[in-house]
């Protein structure tokens, strides 16, 4: 057993060493995807182009405008007194959002009444629009707080100050509600899954295609020995991937890692075993690398979408929710986010770890059983 496994591993190592592009292919796509996800896949919006129509020209209106100018969320492209300018800005997409300060705004506020503010939003990108509206209401709230506290100071001696209740949201585990903190751990799991599944499936199908698989299977080697020989290297590569991408997230994107590295290692190992199982299973269904490619595409994409990576599982239709139960990525994302951001341990994560162990066991067993038959 050990001897055959060791020559298998030696062979895999030599082939990898001879393949000049192997390291490039293994590492560069990971880094690039990490950067793309890290910078592009975010719900945070900066520099929303904004036009302001100031029909009031009061001190209050100028103060409000300065609030918008001061934040990086908005980029004030135009301050005008002409209604047509606003229409033109929105139509030509010079501005995504337009704010109209009606005449009398300052006077109404000065009287201690609430003054209306009109906001026009380009709804063609509903996502950005909604997010921008959210920021806008924060800024307006800030502004009115400033105004009323100033008013209160003026009248401190004559009137009872108003009691205002303001809501202060304080998210746990991700104080800045930075999307990267949510995305990066997910990216680590997803990229590793993609790489390990396709590497495993392709490596075995290539041996089948070239004919070396037949030459090996005619020897007294046991399927388990062959499969171990093929998968141990990818297990190690997968662990390397996770370590590399995690280090990138921690040191480049400054994601906090407050959990137990051993839990992370355990979760990563179980996850990788399940991923290897998927790769092996795909390989037993493919005769050629093209078929493996197609299968990989059809199976791995749903795994990605149905993992809770970006779209919450709780928001999916019931049927799809059921599918996520057999998706190892779903469990690993829970583990990796929890370890990175929450620092919770085994006592909380054991159901997810157990689910991955069970999936790995089932998939590996089925693929070993199918492997022998697939030669026919």
């Amino acid at each position: 057993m050990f001897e055959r496994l060791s020559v298998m591993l030696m062979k895999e190592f030599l082939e990898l060493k001879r393949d000049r592009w192997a390291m490039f292919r293994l590492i560069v796509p990971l880094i690039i995807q990490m950067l793309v996800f890290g910078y592009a896949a975010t719900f945070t919006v900066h520099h929303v182009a904004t036009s302001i129509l100031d029909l009031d020209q009061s001190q209050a209106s100028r103060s409000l405008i300065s609030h918008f100018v001061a934040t990086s969320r908005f980029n004030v492209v135009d301050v005008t007194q002409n209604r047509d300018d606003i229409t033109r800005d929105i139509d030509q997409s010079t501005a995504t959002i337009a704010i109209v300060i009606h005449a009398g705004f300052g006077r109404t506020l000065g009287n201690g009444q609430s003054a209306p503010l009109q906001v026009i939003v380009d709804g063609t990108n509903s996502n950005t629009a909604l997010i921008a509206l959210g920021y806008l209401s924060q800024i307006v709230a800030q502004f009115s707080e400033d105004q009323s506290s100033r008013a209160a100071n003026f009248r401190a001696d004559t009137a009872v100050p108003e009691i205002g209740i303001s809501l202060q949201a304080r998210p746990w585990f991700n104080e800045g509600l930075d999307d990267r903190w949510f995305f990066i751990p997910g990216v680590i799991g997803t990229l590793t899954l993609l790489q390990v599944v396709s590497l495993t499936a392709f490596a075995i199908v290539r041996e089948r295609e070239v004919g070396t698989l037949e030459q090996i299977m005619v020897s007294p080697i046991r399927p388990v020995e062959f499969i171990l020989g093929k998968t141990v290297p990818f297990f190690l590569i997968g662990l390397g991937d996770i370590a590399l991408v995690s280090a990138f997230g921690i040191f480049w994107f400054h994601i906090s890692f407050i959990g137990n590295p051993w839990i992370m290692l355990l979760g990563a190992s179980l996850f990788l075993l399940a991923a290897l199982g998927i790769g092996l299973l795909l390989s037993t269904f493919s005769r050629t690398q093209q078929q493996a490619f197609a299968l990989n595409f059809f199976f791995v994409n749903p795994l990605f979408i149905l993992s809770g990576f970006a779209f919450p599982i709780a928001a999916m239709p019931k049927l799809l929710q059921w599918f996520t139960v057999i998706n190892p990525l779903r469990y690993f994302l829970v583990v990796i986010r929890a370890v990175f951001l929450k620092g919770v341990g085994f006592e909380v994560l054991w159901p997810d770890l157990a689910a991955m162990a069970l999936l790995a066991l089932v998939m590996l067993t089925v693929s070993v059983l199918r492997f022998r038959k697939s030669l026919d």
Partner: protein
Amino acid sequence: MSADAPAILAQALTKKFQSFTAVDHLDLSIAKGEIVGFIGPNGAGKSTTIRMLCGLLRPSEGSAQVAGFDVSSEAEAVREHIGYMSQKFSLYGDLTVRENLRFFGGIYRVARREIDERMKFAISMAGLEGREDRLVRTLAGGWKQRLALGCAILHRPPILFLDEPTSGVEPEARRRFWDLIHEFAADGVTILVSTHYMDEAEYCNRIALIDRGKLIAIGTPSELRAHQLGGELFEVGCAPLGAAMKALSDAPGVVDAAIFGDRLHVVLGAGGLDAADLPGFLGEHGIEVDQVRSVPPSLEDVFVQLVSGSPEERMIP
């Protein structure tokens, strides 16, 4: 396995792929130390038969024993006793000669103290001295082929299955390869080797002719030549060939008529036309004959006649 038990025994061995029968009730018995040539056109079922005998494919019907072990139920034991060279070259191109040998030695668990000596033997047998550290994909065809043989015999199997080992190899290298096969047989190794080169059949102790999954004849090359034709063979130079063949195939005493290159090969049996009558007979059909001579039959003649003689052939338009 007792001394006189056959090394390879197939009984009604059959392989069906869905509804298609690739190997059809094949019977074969090969004695220890024999070289048997497996000959037939592409798609005849040679590779499929060899794969079943190696335990790579499960027979659909029938049974086979190799080295005394059943190929379906004792495949593991069969694998311990055989060497196999697949039709497609299948060593690792990115590994060197030595690394490939060491890999297969390890897979077959050749003892550590023996491996160096066996590798040395394989390298000298393949004529690869001085090329031990070359990547295999940079070797020419003949060397690759001999290295593949070297990898297949590293564990000293008593039975060798070689599936078209010489296809695509230049004639000089082919001859060298056959010399090696004869050396192994002299050491008592049983060899089943498939080929579609008819000339290679002469190197075998016995030949099994296979066509469309059926074994159509088996015997020594001279047996096949002598007995299978059912008459004497003549070469006829005439034109047009097609019309001549048609006229002759219905003529009395003609066992077979087939086009061979730019001539006609005609087998004449007893009680009908004889060689002297041919120019006259063909002349009546408006065919000009310039030469008729007796030729010794080649195995190709035998094969063509056997194939065209099978009843199925006549039924297929």
